[in-house]
């Protein structure tokens, strides 16, 4: 009965109700997008960091991994020290360098080169082929294969740079492509190759000898990661030891703008939805004060009137939310496409990531908003002085 009366009240002014639902839908879409933005990039970044289970990363002191061209010297000794710790399961050294691949007849292709130990690497997943087990082998990503028109088994001429004085390429090697990999931490528009770290160090000459850009460390199951982090920080003071949590904090700091924007716009969306529903239900109640007074006069309980009016607000909010959730997913996809164009952003990072709990949070917030929005007009309706209202209505 209450539901039927609430529906009848809303359907009495269909255009007005439709417009209100549309308004709430846009606000709901924005709210969902902002919840996805606030949560999505963190979840996406965490997933990227955890992809191979490395909990700790060692970079040159005072830097973030690959944030500068700085490298860590004495890499062999550090690796031996780390591997001797019984709490550490895997140590994966990585050396980064810009490479140039010669393509006959066209300009050289600039490539992100990663020197890795193939048996323990955590930078890519093999899509096809095999790991670069020998010193003269490499694993390429799909973009590099496309740009060089190379296939598995082909040989590429790779250099680490040019010597302007000698006018010749430096550190040139001929390397066989033995696998195709999907690189976790690189942008989609970056051609990339992974080769044995010893090969890349040798190609770089004395500047790169026994140096790495980064160590990735995986602790043994059950080991206290924070204790391992503190142990490394104490024993190897030349490096900054980043745990997943500290890396997340650094990302939070750099991308705090987007989180704050999400909170502000999400709050504005909620306020807009709240104002729309409150205004509509208040006007609706104002138009029906006589009807409500009659209902109260013939014995309809105050709580029943309150429930009906609160239900009207709730129906508007939920209807708007349902339409808005679909709309929000479409706009989130569009906005994510814009932000994915950030230069150098790893391909696996999404700013807007849909998680069912986001939809539940948006729906929950809108339901609460609808209830609160209906509360004021419901209180007004329930506290109408019956006799005076009836007299005023009769005079009017």
């Amino acid at each position, binding site marked *: 009965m209450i539901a039927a009366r609430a529906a009848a009240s809303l359907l009495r002014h269909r255009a007005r109700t439709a417009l209100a639902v549309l308004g709430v839908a*846009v606000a709901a879409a924005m709210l969902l997008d902002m919840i996805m933005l606030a949560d999505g990039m963190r979840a996406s970044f965490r997933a990227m960091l955890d992809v191979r289970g490395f909990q700790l990363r060692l970079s040159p002191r005072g830097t973030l991994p690959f944030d500068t061209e700085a490298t860590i010297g004495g890499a062999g000794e550090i690796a031996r020290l780390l591997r001797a710790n019984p709490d550490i399961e895997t140590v994966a050294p990585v050396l980064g360098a810009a490479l140039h691949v010669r393509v006959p007849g066209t300009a050289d292709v600039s490539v992100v080169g990663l020197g890795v130990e193939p048996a323990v690497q955590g930078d890519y997943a093999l899509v096809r082929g095999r790991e670069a087990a020998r010193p003269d082998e490499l694993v390429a990503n799909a973009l590099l294969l496309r740009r060089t028109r190379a296939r598995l088994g082909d040989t590429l001429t790779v250099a680490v740079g040019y010597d302007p004085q000698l006018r010749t390429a430096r550190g040139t090697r001929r390397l066989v492509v033995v696998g195709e990999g999907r690189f976790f931490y690189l942008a989609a528009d970056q051609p990339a190759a992974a080769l044995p770290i010893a090969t890349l160090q040798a190609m770089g000459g004395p500047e790169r000898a026994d140096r790495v850009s980064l160590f990735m460390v995986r602790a043994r199951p059950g080991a206290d990661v924070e204790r391992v982090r503190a142990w490394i920080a104490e024993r190897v003071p*030349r490096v900054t030891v980043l745990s997943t949590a500290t890396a997340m904090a650094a990302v939070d700091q750099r991308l705090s703008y987007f989180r704050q924007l999400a909170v502000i716009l999400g709050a504005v969306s909620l306020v807009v939805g709240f104002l729309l529903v409150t*205004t509509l239900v208040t*006007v609706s109640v104002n138009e029906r004060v006589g009807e409500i007074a009659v209902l109260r006069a013939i014995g309809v309980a105050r709580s029943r009137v309150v429930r009906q009016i609160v239900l009207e607000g709730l129906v508007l909010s939920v209807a708007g939310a349902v339409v808005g959730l679909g709309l929000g997913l479409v706009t989130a996809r569009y906005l994510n496409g814009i932000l994915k164009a950030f230069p150098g952003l790893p391909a696996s990072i999404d700013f807007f990531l849909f998680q069912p709990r986001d939809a539940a949070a948006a729906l929950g917030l809108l339901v609460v908003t609808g209830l609160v929005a209906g509360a004021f007009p419901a209180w007004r309706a329930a506290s109408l002085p019956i006799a005076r209202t009836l007299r005023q209505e009769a005079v009017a």
Partner: protein
Amino acid sequence: MLHLALALTLLAAAQPPPERTIAVDERLAADLGLRVGDRVVLRARPEDAEGDTVRIAAVTRRGADPSEIARDDYRVRLHLGQLQALIGYGDRVDRFAVATTGDSGTAAVLRRVNDAAFGFRAYRSRDVAVETSRTFAVVSRFHRAIGVITIVASAIFLLCIMLLKVEERRRDVAALRLLGVSRASVVRSVVLEAAAVALAGSALGVGIGWVASAIVNAHYQGVYRTPLVFSLVTPGVVTLAVALSVTLGVAAGLLAALRLVRTPPLALLGR
């Protein structure tokens, strides 16, 4: 004459070499409590045993560069030769900045350098600027998209509010019509009222927007320690916002007024 030259040479040999100086940026000076005249030791690598003791000669302020916004690093400026010696870079540089005599001169220099050089390329400064501000271009595109969504939401909200506002005048309109006021006059008065409300709301909105913009600038300039202006309230933005809200307000008022005057006055009174 010979004696004088010899004396000057001996004097120069007796003087200690001039102390080397650097400039640090405001951020580093503030975080480490450094002041002009302080002495610091520079090392190329943390593990290097010996460093280069230098005196801070200046504290510099960064320019408003969007490409550096998220970078929380410090800047130290050294004389070129000093930096080359410190990091063992030899007689090398990362780039040259070249001033030309004009557009045609720039084109000629680009052509000559790129035809003759091996191992490096010359670019126009504006091309470099476009490349380095790609991050900011993405953020700008994102803001525009968010702006469009906000405008759509605001437009619907405004339409809804104006329709409700006019609908509230049912009884007044019915009374006016029963008194013999023409439909056109009723429509004009309702539209005028809607325009006045929209204009007043716009003025208030511009004020709120201006204050919000000042808060945004103060907050993010503090967070990112940059003089960059994040939010600008320009005459164009104000004109767009006011024009949009007044147009929507008048349109909503007109729609609602037309509906009201087409309804018989007694029906408006609920009879």
